Each structure stands twice: as structure tokens, then as C-alpha cells.
């Protein structure tokens, strides 16, 4: 396990030095259904989300990544194994671990501003301060002009930015992002990567980001967790040592990025091979492609 490195804490106005918001999962297991319909989704899964780092988890779609998020967020509990945050076991959802969902989970009946203010209002705490913070965040994500619009009036990219703001106002210790840019077109997606990376680099909180996109993973990650196909466990951890701030061009230019990309592709191919013998249809597609590629 990597040790905590002090240089990840960046001093600055917005930066809050967080002591240790480290999530440790050890030997998690999760099975859905029972009897002949039992389906083991997570098996013997262990990993660490290190504090003040951006950990990206990548795996084929349909593997148990979303289930892992449900567990970490506390919406569901594991059948066995330990899941701790700062040494304390995780029971139930809490505002210290905030989830950003696939697609958008902005409340359609609230304006952008009300959406951002939802967290503080729901907890009824520090409303005055929160209102100021909301203004600040609106400006920061460039949505001042859209504060009184409903989510359906925003473009996909704007919705994601509003969602980032809605999460950040709660100052979570850990931010969990479940394929947050899925469904955006590639160009908006790349802009969102840069945007999100900048936000992260400003205060370097603990972030846990789940994706199926190799480029996205390499561009964003400090640490990359590669997951196996069903039942899910951790396959490999790669530390991504491309210096920050990164540029989209790095994905093309940087020889290290290319190396990592090849490595990740190979690993995912192997996973597809294994699950093919398990009979997954999605996996058959992967096998098809990656076997050609490997040759």
C-alpha cells in the first residue's frame, strides 16, 4: 500500500488540508438474488482509495462497479468483508461521501440555484454562508446566467457542471463520481475532463471516479484501479505519474500515456477472455475485438 505523501496537499485559499479521508475495502463480497438465481457481483474485492488523490476505477461495463459505489456510498451493505472510512466502518449514506451519478441526477423541479442549495437547505445548516458559497460556485462553473433555469433548459455539459457545484457546496470529504460524463459527446467530454481536473487540482480532495473510458481514466487518474469482470475484484493498480496540470494533448504526445494505454487494453482483454468462458454476451464482443488486437 502506498504511503501518504505530504506533497499532495496544496496550500492555498480554497484548499482544506484533510487529515485522512481514506477508504479501505477489504475482502468485500456481494451477491444478489438467491437460490438458482444467485448472482455474485463482487467477490473478495480489496482496494484503497487514498486520501487527497484522484483514484479512478476502470472495468468493462456491466461489471460490479456500480454496486461498489452503492456500497461505498452506504446505500447498500456488503454480505461480508470490511469497508471503512478513516478507520470507521461505513454504515448508511452520509454527506461525507457524496455521489455524482451516471447521467444527471439534478432535481428537475428545482432551478440551478435551488439544486445547488439543496444540500445545505436539507440539513438546515449555515444557510447564509451557503448562499454566498452558492454564488461563488455558480460563478466558478460559469452558470451565473443560468441560475434560474430548470435542468432541462441546460445543455448536457452545463448539467454536469451544475452537478459538480451541487456536490462541492457540501464540502464532502470524499467525492464519488459514477461515470459522470457518460452520454456527453466526445468533445464536450474532453472539455469536462479539463474542467474537472482543474477543479480537482485546486483543492486536491479525495476523489473516486468510475469509468469505462480508457482515455478518461489515464487523463484524470493519480491511481488507476483496474477491475476484473464479474464477479468483480481488483485486478491491478497502476500509479499514473504524468505530471499535472495535464493537457488533452498529453494523451497523444506523452509516450508514458501511450504505454499505460496499451497496458490497460491488454489487461481488459484478459478480463474479457475470462468472462467469455462464463458466457457473458457483452464479453463476447470484447473477446472478438481484443483477440484480434493482441495478435
Amino acid at each position, binding site marked *: 500500500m502506498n504511503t501518504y505523501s505530504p506533497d499532495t496537499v496544496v496550500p492555498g485559499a480554497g484548499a482544506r488540508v484533510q487529515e485522512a479521508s481514506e477508504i479501505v475495502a477489504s475482502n468485500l463480497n456481494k451477491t444478489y438474488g*438467491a437460490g*438458482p438465481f444467485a*448472482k455474485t457481483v463482487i467477490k473478495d474485492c480489496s482496494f484503497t482509495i487514498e486520501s487527497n488523490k484522484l483514484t479512478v476505477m476502470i472495468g468493462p*461495463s456491466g461489471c460490479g462497479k456500480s454496486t461498489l459505489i452503492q456500497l461505498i456510498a452506504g446505500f447498500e451493505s456488503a454480505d461480508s468483508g470490511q469497508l471503512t472510512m478513516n478507520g470507521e466502518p461505513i454504515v448508511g449514506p452520509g454527506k461525507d461521501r457524496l455521489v455524482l451519478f*451516471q447521467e444527471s441526477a439534478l432535481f428537475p423541479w428545482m432551478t440551478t440555484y435551488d439544486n445547488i442549495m439543496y444540500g445545505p437547505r436539507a440539513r438546515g445548516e449555515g444557510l447564509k454562508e451557503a448562499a454566498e458559497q452558492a454564488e461563488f460556485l455558480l460563478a466558478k462553473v460559469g452558470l451565473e446566467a443560468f441560475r434560474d433555469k430548470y435542468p432541462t433548459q441546460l445543455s448536457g455539459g452545463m448539467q454536469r457542471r451544475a452537478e459538480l457545484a451541487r456536490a462541492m457546496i457540501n464540502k464532502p470529504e470524499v467525492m464519488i463520481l459514477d461515470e459522470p460524463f457518460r452520454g456527453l459527446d466526445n468533445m464536450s467530454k474532453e472539455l469536462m475532463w479539463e474542467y474537472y481536473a482543474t477543479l480537482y487540482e485546486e483543492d486536491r480532495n479525495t476523489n473516486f471516479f468510475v469509468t469505462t473510458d480508457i482515455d478518461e481514466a489515464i487523463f484524470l487518474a493519480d491511481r488507476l484501479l483496474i477491475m476484473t469482470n464479474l464477479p468483480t475484484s481488483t485486478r491491478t493498480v497502476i500509479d499514473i505519474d504524468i505530471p499535472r496540470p495535464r493537457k488533452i494533448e498529453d494523451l497523444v504526445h506523452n509516450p508514458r500515456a501511450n504505454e499505460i494505454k496499451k497496458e490497460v487494453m491488454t489487461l481488459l482483454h484478459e478480463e474479457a477472455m475470462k468472462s467469455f468462458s462464463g*458466457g457473458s*454476451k*457483452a464479453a463476447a464482443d470484447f473477446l472478438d475485438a481484443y483477440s484480434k488486437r493482441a495478435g
Partner: protein
Amino acid sequence: MHDTVLNTDAATSQGPEVTTMGLTMYRLSTWLKSPRPYLMFIGFAIVLGFWYLAVEVWKLPRFEDMPGLTEVFGEWFNKDPIYGLSVYTPEYYTHIGISLRRIAYAFLLATGLGVPLGLFLGWSKTFREFIFPLFEVLRPIPILAWVPLAIIIFAGSESPVVFLTFLASFFATTLNTMLGVESIDESYSRAASCLGASRWQVFRHVVIPGAMPYIFTGLQISIGVAWFSLVAGEMVSGQFGLGYLINTSYMMVEYPKIIIGMITLGIVGFASSAMVRVLGDYLMQWRVRELALGD
């Protein structure tokens, strides 16, 4: 939607050992293990118990005139009924049979006319522009307001009742069919015309099957409103039938028969809409199999 399809890939391909029979047994056993059947039982017990106690034991004010639980069921299953109607008397089945016959005529007629009309309304814009406003003008008039007019126009006591029942079904069927056609994704008909289908072929191969789910939703609603209007029609005019039974029992002060009539109506009504549902599932195999994946 997309996501669930991907996620269930692995689940559905687990193998052929999961048979329909096994599935049914498994569902039955989980149902029995869940609290649901017992809660349901409690629910029935509360209602029936209250009925029994309020009328026959406590004799609450206002309840004293009501027929009691044991009185109704005693009469219903009496070989020698006091008021001349029970499951052992042919008269009971005459009433059911006549109501069913009226429903069958009206429903079949409404389906036979309403489905084609709805399909054409949805398919041809010109046709819709001409006909639909007329439809919209007539629709807000409650079916029951047609009763006297129906009696004037149609001779005898049978056809007015069937006409009213038909009218209610017809509006529901036509409207839902039209909505169904309008809701078909445009790319289906575009794809068909790309593949060289003529306008008529598009109608046959895209419009009809595409609108099918809505047609069957419409037919479910249609059979419900058919019973609704049939009862009203039978109560106002008509000879025989369950609505007539309820009304005459009231006038003859044979109160238990009212409740028997009501319960019978509930059962027959439920059975007829279940039949429509089963027929729909049979005709839309593609949908059943698709939905099974989501389970």
C-alpha cells in the same frame, strides 16, 4: 434503459437451467417467504371483520340496514336461496351471461372500429386534421349523458345498452391507438422506407406492430369503461344483466342480492381485463421477452 440492458447481459446468459417452471416456483417461494401474503391476509381480515362486526354484532347506526357478511355469503352459496338468487340458481348465470354478451358485442365492435380508425388517425395527418376535431368535440360528453338519446334512437331495450357500452369503449380504444401510432419512434418508419418499404408496407410492418403496446393498454382501459357504462346502462334501462340485478334488488328490498351483484361484477370485470392482458402478452412476445430481461 441502455444501462440495464448491458448490466443484465451477464445475468440472463447464465444458462438454460433456469426454466419457466423453475422461475415460477422460485417466485412463489420468495413470495411466501416475504411478509406480503400475510399482510394481504391481514388486510382482508380487517375489511371483512369490520363488515361483520359493524353490521351483525355491534349493529352500528347506519349499518343496521346493510346486509351483513354472513347473510350475503349465506345467500350466495345457499341451495335454496331466500331471495331466489345464488350460485345454484340458473337466474344468477342468466344475469352474468347477458351482461357478458353485451360486453362482448360492444367490446368487439369498438375494437373492430376503434383500432383501424385510431391507426389511420395516427398514420395520416390529413385524415387526422379532418376527423380528430370532431372526435374531440364529442368526447367530453359523458357516455351516460347519451342514455336518453340512445333510447330514442334505438328500438328495444337491448341495443341502447350495447350502444352506450360500445361508445365508451370506442373512444378509449381509438384515442389510445392514435397515441400509440404517434409515439412510434420516427426512425422506425424512416428505416423501413430506407429499406424500400412502400407507404402501405410501412403501415403494415411498422405502424401496426409499433402501436401494439398502446393498443393493448387502450383495450385494457376500454374493457374497464365498458363495464362502467354497461352497469349504468343496465341500471337505467334494460332487462337482465348484473346492473339490472343490483338496481331491482334495491327496489324490491332484497339487499343481500345487491352485494352479490357487486362482488360478481368485480370478479367478472377483473377476469375480462386479465383476459385482454394475456392476449396482449401472447401477441407481443417480443415485449415479454424484452421485459423479462429487466427482472
